[in-house]
């Protein structure tokens, strides 16, 4: 009886762990479309975790890992705008709505909305967007696209730079969970 209960405990915790999927190599891109120039930066070091139990998920984006085409642009992004010495990462914590209603055991694509709190540059905003979940060969991946405003997160574009940097950024997120 003693061993049985121990075994039970062990099984329980194991099965719980298996109900979360993670990755450390997620992808985030942002795109700024301004009159003078377009700026794109990509990040392949995004961590994410998704709880298959209830559809809650989280992201962690190391700001310094954003790669720009110009070295100086990357430096200015970190030093002048994101202040990544002080705020080294952006985070997101949220929940996919009606997650229990999705049958992720079958291959296919599922559109769902999610809500959550995004923290960038030390400031948090509630966001409400849609996400595309794909199940293929039992593996779950997530894709979404949305815009955010720099000014909502206390990142001010000086007037002289308004023609180079847009306040509205288009974000693309692609995560393949292991």
């Amino acid at each position, binding site marked *: 009886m003693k061993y049985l209960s121990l075994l039970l405990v062990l099984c329980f915790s194991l099965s*719980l762990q298996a109900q979360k999927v993670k990755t450390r190599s997620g992808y985030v891109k942002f795109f700024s479309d301004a009159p003078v120039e377009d700026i794109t930066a990509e990040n392949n070091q995004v961590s994410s975790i998704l709880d298959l139990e209830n559809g809650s998920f989280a992201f962690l984006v190391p700001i310094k890992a954003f790669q720009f085409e110009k070295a100086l642009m990357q430096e200015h992004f970190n030093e002048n705008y994101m202040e990544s010495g002080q705020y080294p990462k952006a985070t997101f914590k949220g929940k996919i709505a009606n997650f229990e209603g999705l049958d992720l055991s079958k291959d296919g694509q599922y559109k769902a909305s999610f809500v959550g709190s995004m923290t960038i540059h030390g400031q948090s905003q509630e966001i409400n967007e849609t996400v595309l979940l794909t199940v293929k060969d039992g593996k779950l991946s997530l894709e979404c696209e949305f815009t955010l405003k720099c000014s909502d997160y206390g990142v001010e574009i000086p007037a002289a730079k308004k023609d180079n940097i847009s306040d509205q950024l288009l974000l693309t997120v692609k995560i393949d969970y292991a």
Partner: protein
Amino acid sequence: MLKRLAFILCLVPLCTYAQDDLLSELEEDQPETTQYTFATWKGTKVVNLQTNELPGKGTLQYTILHRFGAFNDDFFYNFMGLDNAQVRLTLDYSPTPWLNLGAGHTGFRKTYDVFAKYRLLRQSKGSVNMPVSVTGFSSAYYSALRIDDGIERGFGRRMSYVHELIIARKFSQNFSAQIVPTLIHSNLVERTADNNTQIAIGLAARYKITPMHAITVEWVPVLNPNQYPNFEADPLALPADVPFQNFSNALSIGIDIETGGHVFQLFVTNARGVAEPYAFAQNTGSWLDGDLHFGFNISRVFTMVR
């Protein structure tokens, strides 16, 4: 009893996992990486001293440096000194992230120079902890000035050299400072008693007042200064009795303004010879006499290779 215990035990992992925040679970998962410090300075120079910064790999940098006329020399007649500019131009390129090569021309003494700047250590924290960045700078100067004083001036005698070892630290987002042991060597000096080789300890600091603006201060005391004949001190003295006076140490105070691809540095300095050997070791201007000059350094970078 045992059954009840088992039941409670079963609940334990459930409870802990439910409380465990997904984000903190991600945080724990993060591998330890080395975080290199960047943007210790806005530009590759403070005023006259180099900084530990190098332009990024594949970047071509063009700089224009001006030092205007003295405040104590008919300031308004000379349009605040602007009528009377000393100019230096440089062009440099970084073939790798740790090496920068360049060439320059300075109006003062018609000087041509080549220089190399190389990164030796980078300030970092994380898996590699390094308190300072260390960068080397070496340059050679050739003065093409026509002088007709009977002294033979071959190629060698027209050369001088400067080496700087820049030890910099970014203390916070806004405050950076550096100490720069500097070696200045001139093959030809004014008097036999003068030192051909001089040592200076450059000190510089900056404080950022906004993300785009910073206040900079720089002082370069020479440990074994040379002297120069000061003809103005006693105009009636016979050539053999002209009084000698120590060269002054360069002290500069300025502001850095960054606008994307440019860095504008505007400052007041007592060093007028824009190239390093003149600015550090052959500087006749003194702050106490009001022998000060407006000046600027402007840099422009072009990304050649992405």
